């Protein structure tokens, strides 16, 4: 950052460019919102940039019920709420073993987990499909949650192990003197101290699970179990000619994310940058 105050034409230019760019970035969402709130006839007759003649809030109810967006959202919420804490617990236990239990093969095991990050999901789909079919877990919550947890493990261990390593060993000794066993150490000392890293993981993991598409597409075949991503695609197919309804569905799927984002924006940003910089 420069210390000399830039002249006001430069400042104005900077603002100008930023505002133009911001408007461009907002266009898609605003356009969708306008379309979602118009009636079908309004859409055909009024100019594309015009506000809806009468706000058709009913479009949202229709998208939620007949369009089944409500069902898709509930499914996604259920999967996310179970997967994220469970996944983090599994990863934290492993990271704990790698950093705090004098494990001889700690580095080798860590490298073993890390290899998983190089493997694209596509390279596991067919065997996983066979596995899920054999265990009757296709289109079930346990099935998809198991798979989601699996794919989250390498990254979760990477983050948590990195953070656990910054906790001084003195704390372990103090816990030992207080009569804390390993489980106690894990739940009452290490986990509470790791809340920043865990909060980051929660946000990132939630977002990834909420938005996941490929695995849901392959492993959830029953429409009643579909998530927002796969559901939106089928919703689009079914209502492809009713543009106002379709956009209402899209907007419905954006709103929860928007709300969470506005509330926790700084966690999203710092989480992403912090975790990638490792």
């Amino acid at each position, binding site marked *: *950052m*420069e*210390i*000399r105050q830039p002249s006001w034409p430069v400042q104005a230019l*900077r*603002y100008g460019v930023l505002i133009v*760019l911001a408007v461009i*970035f*907002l266009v*898609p969402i605003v*356009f969708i919102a306008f*379309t979602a709130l118009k009636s079908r006839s309004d859409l055909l007759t009024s*100019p*594309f940039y015009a506000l809806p003649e009468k706000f058709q809030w009913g479009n949202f109810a229709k998208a939620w019920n007949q369009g089944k967006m409500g069902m898709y959202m509930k499914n996604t919420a259920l999967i996310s709420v179970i997967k994220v804490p469970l996944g983090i617990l599994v*990863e934290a*236990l*492993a990271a704990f*073993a*790698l950093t705090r239990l*004098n494990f001889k093969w700690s580095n080798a*095991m860590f490298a073993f987990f890390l290899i998983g990050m190089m*493997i*694209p999901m*596509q*390279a*596991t*789909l*067919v*065997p996983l499909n066979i596995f899920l079919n054999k265990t009757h877990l296709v289109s079930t919550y346990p099935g998809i949650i*198991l*798979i989601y*947890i*699996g*794919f989250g*493990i*390498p990254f979760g*261990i990477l983050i948590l192990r*990195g953070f656990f390593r910054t906790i001084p060993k003195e704390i372990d000794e103090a816990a030992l003197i207080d009569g804390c066993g390993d489980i106690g150490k894990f739940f009452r000392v290490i986990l509470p101290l790791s809340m920043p890293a865990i909060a980051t993981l929660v946000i990132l993991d939630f977002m990834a699970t909420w*938005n996941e*598409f*490929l695995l849901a597409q*392959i492993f959830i075949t029953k429409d009643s179990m579909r998530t*927002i*991503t796969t559901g*939106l695609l089928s919703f689009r197919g079914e209502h492809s000619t009713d*543009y106002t309804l*379709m956009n209402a569905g*899209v907007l419905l*799927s*954006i709103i929860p*994310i*928007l709300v969470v*984002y*506005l509330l926790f924006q700084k966690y*999203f*940003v710092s989480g*992403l*940058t912090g975790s*990638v910089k*490792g």
Partner: protein
Amino acid sequence: MKIAPTRFDKGENRMTARALKPWLFLLPALTIYLIVIFVPSLYTFYLSFFKWNGVAADKVFVGLDNYADLILHDSVFARALKNNLLWTAGSLILMIGIGLMLALLLNKRIKGRIVFRGIFYFPYVLSGVIVATSWAWMYNPTQGFVNKLLETIGLESWTRAWLADPETALYAVFIAALWQGVGQPMVLFLAGLQTIPHDPYEAAVLDGAKPYQSFWYITFPLLRETLVIVVATTMIASMKVYDIIYAMTGGGPAESTQVLSSWMYYQTFKFANIGTGSAISFFLVLITMVVIIPYVYYTTKRSHL
């Protein structure tokens, strides 16, 4: 050294118990990891040497034929690979370039900075399917924003069916991906820019440096570490891209927007060429490794991972 005696302090039990403990903590993660990632990927590699349709009892061993057929005879594979490379080039230049530009614009104490940052970053938290659906509507030939805008400003001759025209489809999808993606390099660069101290700039100004010189000789070198991360993650994401393309064009029209991931999906789940699909997955693994291994090597050398 234990202070409080436990029941394991007697004899050999102590050694085995202590040695077992880490494994117990590792057990859930290790089991799930093996089941979901490790073993399946090995099995897929194995399957890539067979011809199989996924249901028949017999698989036919064909050695490297699947790989050879892909490289030599599959024109869609060639197209997909080309598209991935185009996508990567576009991402490296535009996604990173625009991200950097936005970061530089936002790196001053201006009012509403958080708001701007929030607007540019928001599309990144949306799923590829939502972005695809939103932009498919933007590109709608009769009602979409793009064509309507062109009509309104008198450029009606420029309107076209963006997603239905093999010439324009990939670029149209890429623009949607840009909208979604530039926020990510932007915040990474912003974080990197924050760590650069003022002093070099002050000294440079005193020496009569112009802004672009300050950028090239001070900002750019100090951003190098951030740049490495951004480049590596962008390259990997470009080779793996799937959601937005599949949801926007399904790989069409006429396979003009196919990429490796989507072509793998078609081969495996639509055409039931399990062997071929597995071979494509392994190309993906190879390519990812080519990027990640030097990256990990470079970053672990420089910092303590």
